[in-house]
Every structure is written in C-alpha cells, then in structure tokens.
C-alpha cells in the first residue's frame, strides 16, 4: 500500500517539476528512456545473467526511428512502435543464440554483438551518417505538429504513462509462473530442467522482453534528442545500464526508474562541477553500492515502504 503511495508521489513530482523548471524536461525524458532500458536489464538480472550489450537494442530502435523519420512523414507514436518492434524482432533472433550461454559468456557475447552493430554503424557512413550519427526533424506527435516545448511536454506525459504501464506489467510478469521460472535460472537451472521446464525457452522469453523494453527506451531517447549516434550502442553504455539497475535496485521494477533518475542527475551536476570526471564519481558510487548496498536504493527504501510482515501479523 505504501509502495503505491510512493509511486504516486514520484509520478506527481516527475510531472510537476518541469512545470516550474522547464529545462528539466529533457533530463527527465532521458532518465525515463534510460529507465525503460534498465527495466529490461532487470529482467535478465532476475535470471542471474548480466548483459554487457543491451545498448544494442536501444541503438537499433533509435536508428529505426531515425531512418523512418528521414524517409517518410511518420507520426512519433508510430515511430515508437516501429522502433520497439524492430528491437523485439532483433532480440527474438539474437536470443535464439544467446540462451545457450550463461554467466560471463552470456555477458560478453552480448557485448560482441553490440560491438558489431556499433562498428557497422560507424563504418558505413554513407548510409548511417558514420560516427556523427543521424539527425532528423521533429515528427508530428499524435498527428499534431508541435513546437519544441509542446512536443517535449506531450512526449514526457506519454513517457511517464508508458513507464508506469511497463513497470506494472513487468512486476506482474515477475510474479507470474513464467517470471518465477526465470528467477529459477539464477537459483538452480538444473532443478528447473528436472521439473520438465525448458530453461532456454524461459530465458528466451526474458531476453525478448529485455530487448523490447530497451527498444522502447531507445525510441523515446531518439525522439527526445532528435539525433542518434553509434555511441548509443557502445559497450560502455550497456555497462551503464547494468550499473543503473544495481544502483536503483533490481528487486523491483521501480528500482529501474529510481536508479535512472539518480544517475541522470548525478551525471548532470557532476559534469557541471567537475568537468571530465563524472565517470570517476559514478565509479566511486558504484563501488560504494557494491560493498554497502548491493540491493540498491530500492533495497534501502524497501524497509521504509513495507511494514514488517511479522509485526503486522502479530497485531492481527
């Protein structure tokens, strides 16, 4: 119950803040798109697997959006859909190969695939704009041509809504039989197989979900910036996504968004104060998290949000 209240308060803050401080719109939009991608990675973390290549789906969706927007007059909502579908299809295909691997091999094979995409985008400059990336004009949103400000506000409201729905759905998935099976890959895959359940098929589902969410995030990211670059798919970006997941806490879908907001604002402020050293600060924060709070910020908040069940049972 308290969790629901917490989410409502958070949503209110996210929607109200930009009304008073307009320049916050872009960082909040970026944080939301990051959060969606992180949500996908959290699904993989459930299975005990860490991918150092999921930014490839973010990047793929971004380029799908950019290519389509440059080729034809397509509405932003359709672009988001197209980007997500492209990432989902790619995830379904690459996933067939990936589900055979666990642990470091899984993480680094994802990294290899993302580096292939990254290099191809950088090399074939004639089509992809090379390392400078692709710029595209602001499309219509909901079939209305808007100014930058109106576009961002509307996109923000849509992004908040999408994030909320995605968070609720992912949380339901975690609680479902399939989600429990996914978590069993982490605890004991062999036992899962002995129950007659194909661990590969379960993991494939998780992988496709992760790709789809990364694609969704990538589409919003591209629309916010109006620019896509190969950098979106670099392996260090994938590492950042995993970092945000650990920072926010992978125990609950909301951890993804808490982490994404903290990350975005730390980056924003540190970059302003200590130019060129934001990675250093983030690295130090990550180290502290690994040692002091491995369950992330949500893990710390959880105790405040959920009344201890043993205590309430006693009272009842």
């Amino acid at each position: 119950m308290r969790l629901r209240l917490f989410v409502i308060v958070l949503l209110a803050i996210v929607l109200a803040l930009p009304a008073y401080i307009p320049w916050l719109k872009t960082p909040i939009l970026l944080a939301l798109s990051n959060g969606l991608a992180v949500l996908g990675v959290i699904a993989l973390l459930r299975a005990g697997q860490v991918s150092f290549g999921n930014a490839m789906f973010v990047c793929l969706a971004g380029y799908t959006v950019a290519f389509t927007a440059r080729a034809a007059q397509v509405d932003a909502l359709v672009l988001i859909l197209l980007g997500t579908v492209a990432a989902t299809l790619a995830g379904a295909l690459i996933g067939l190969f990936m589900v055979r691997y666990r642990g470091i091999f899984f993480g680094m094979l994802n990294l290899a695939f993302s580096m292939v995409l990254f290099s191809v985008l950088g090399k074939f400059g004639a089509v992809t704009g090379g390392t400078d990336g692709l710029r595209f004009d602001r499309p219509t949103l909901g079939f209305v041509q808007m100014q930058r400000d109106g576009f961002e506000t509307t996109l923000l409201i849509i992004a908040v809504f999408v994030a909320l729905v995605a968070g609720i759905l992912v949380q339901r998935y975690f609680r479902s039989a399939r989600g429990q099976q996914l978590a069993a890959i982490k605890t004991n895959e062999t036992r899962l197989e002995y129950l007659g359940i194909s661990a590969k098929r379960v993991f494939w589902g998780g992988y496709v979900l992760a790709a789809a969410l990364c694609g969704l995030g990538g589409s919003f990211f591209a629309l916010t910036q109006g620019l896509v670059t190969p950098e979106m798919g670099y392996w260090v970006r994938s590492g950042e996504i995993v970092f945000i997941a650990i920072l926010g806490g992978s125990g609950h879908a909301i951890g993804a968004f808490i982490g994404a907001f903290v990350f975005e604002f730390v980056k924003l402020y540190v970059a302003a104060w200590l130019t060129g050293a934001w990675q250093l600060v983030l690295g130090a924060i990550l180290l502290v998290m690994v040692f002091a709070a491995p369950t992330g910020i949500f893990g710390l908040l959880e105790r405040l949000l959920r009344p201890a069940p043993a205590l309430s049972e006693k009272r009842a």
Partner: protein
Amino acid sequence: MNASLLLLALMDGISYAALLFLVALGLTLIFGVMNILNLAHGSLYAWGGYVAATFGIVIAKAGLSPLLILPALVIGAVLTGIVLGSILEIGLLRRILTKDPILQLLGTFAAFMILEDLQRLIWGSQPYFVSDVVSLLGTLTVADVTYTRYQLLVIPSVAVVALLGLRWFLNRTALGRQVTAVTHHREIATAMGVNASRVSLLTIVIGAALGALGGALAAPTTSITPGIGAEMMVLSFAVVATAGLGQIGGAAIAALMIGLGRSFAVYLFPEVEVLVPYLIMVAVLLIRPQGMFSRVATRRI
C-alpha cells in the same frame, strides 16, 4: 592479392597477434585464479601505454640514447603492473571474492570507470607515442617486403618469451604449482597449506603487468589515446573466450587466429576489418560454447 601483399598481411597479423596475446594472457591468468573477469584489464593496457610513452618521452628529452627506450618500456609496464595490480587486488578483487557474480563484474566495471577518468585527468586527450625506437632498430626485408624490425622481431619475441616463461613458471616452480592449485580449487589448495591470498596477489600483479606490457609495446607503433582501453578490453576478451577461459596455450592460438584474420581483412575487405574478431569468436562459440580448448566441467546439482 599477390604474394608480397600476402606476406605483408602475415607480418601485420603476427605482430598484432603478439600484442593481443600478451593482454589476453593477463586477463585469462587473473580469471583463472580469482574466477572474476576483470573488466578493468583494458585500462591496465592503456595505463601501461601511457606510462611507457611518458618514460620514452622523458628519455628522448633528456638526450639519452633512444636504445634506452626499449628497457624503459618494459620497466614502465612492470611498474604499472605492480602498482595498479596491487591496488586492484588488495582494494577490490580480494574483497569481492565471495560476492554475487553480477556484483563482481560491476565492481571491476567501477574500477574501469575510475581508471579511465583518472587516465584522462593525468594525460589529457592528446595522443602519445614514442616512435624513436622503431626507427632506430630499422627495417628488415623479407622477399621484397620491408617491415620494421621492432614489429617483426621485438614484439613477437616478447610474446613467445612470456608464453614459455609463464609455462615454465606454472609447471616447474613451487610457487607456480601453487598458482595452478589455487586456479583448480581455491578451498582445497588453502586446506593443503597454500597461502591463497598471497598467490592471488602475485598472479594479479603478473597479469596486470602483462596487460600493461601490451600497452607499452604498442606505444611505439600506435598512438595511445583515450578509448584504447575500452577497445582492447573487448578484443582481449574475444581472444580469451575463443580459446576457453583460463587456457594459456589456447590463448596464443586464438590470438593468432584473430590477429591474422583481422590483418587479412584489412587488405581483402577493409570495411569489415573491425568485425572480424567478433565474427571469429561467435563462429567458434556457436560450435563450442565454452571455447576451443576448454575441458568439460562436471555439473553441480
């Protein structure tokens, strides 16, 4: 493609493979002993390159013989390995040994982020290189193909010495046998009286020095710029994964495959050059999911 171009690609490939092998050797050694993939290994390569290049520039400025640069590169790499390796082991790896594998990976990723920024703060973003030693050693002509002695003789011989030396150390010395024992099973080795934490420290220093040596030897022929660490991290992992984690001899063969594959691609299909290492790795892992030379592990239920 004519014969001399073929020979040129072969020489390029061997020199590149030797560098790749040195870095991969360090990575696989650290993985063997700690069972942690050190994502900061690429940074050790970059730091080795920067420290060695700084040494080289100091020697050149002091007016000393450029011949001194060669030992200076090695000394720079070893120093980097000792300092950074000890800091990494004592400050991080030792403390995350029993943690969840995801947290272990992220711990080393944090070290990578910190090292990358520190390196940028210290050396800035302009490229560093020390080419004096290459021109001093001159060139060599093999069947009409002229190639630098440094790349054709110095780098591959360092790699061969590293491979043979490490094999001798691991198989023939008491300390090396202890390292092998810890690699096989840490707990049992400890029960047998091996000081596992001392062995780990030593191995990580050696591994870090090998990574740094790769960077130091690259400094005379390639310019050291920000970002090479991140790139080398991925490439050296591709070598290690293709060979199978912890396989030293296998890493040499995998490095040759990837090095030659890449240099032939440079001449034949320049567009896909950067993709070749990953394509080789994916092709190998499709057929053998644990790498070429890995042994079958028993399942623990």
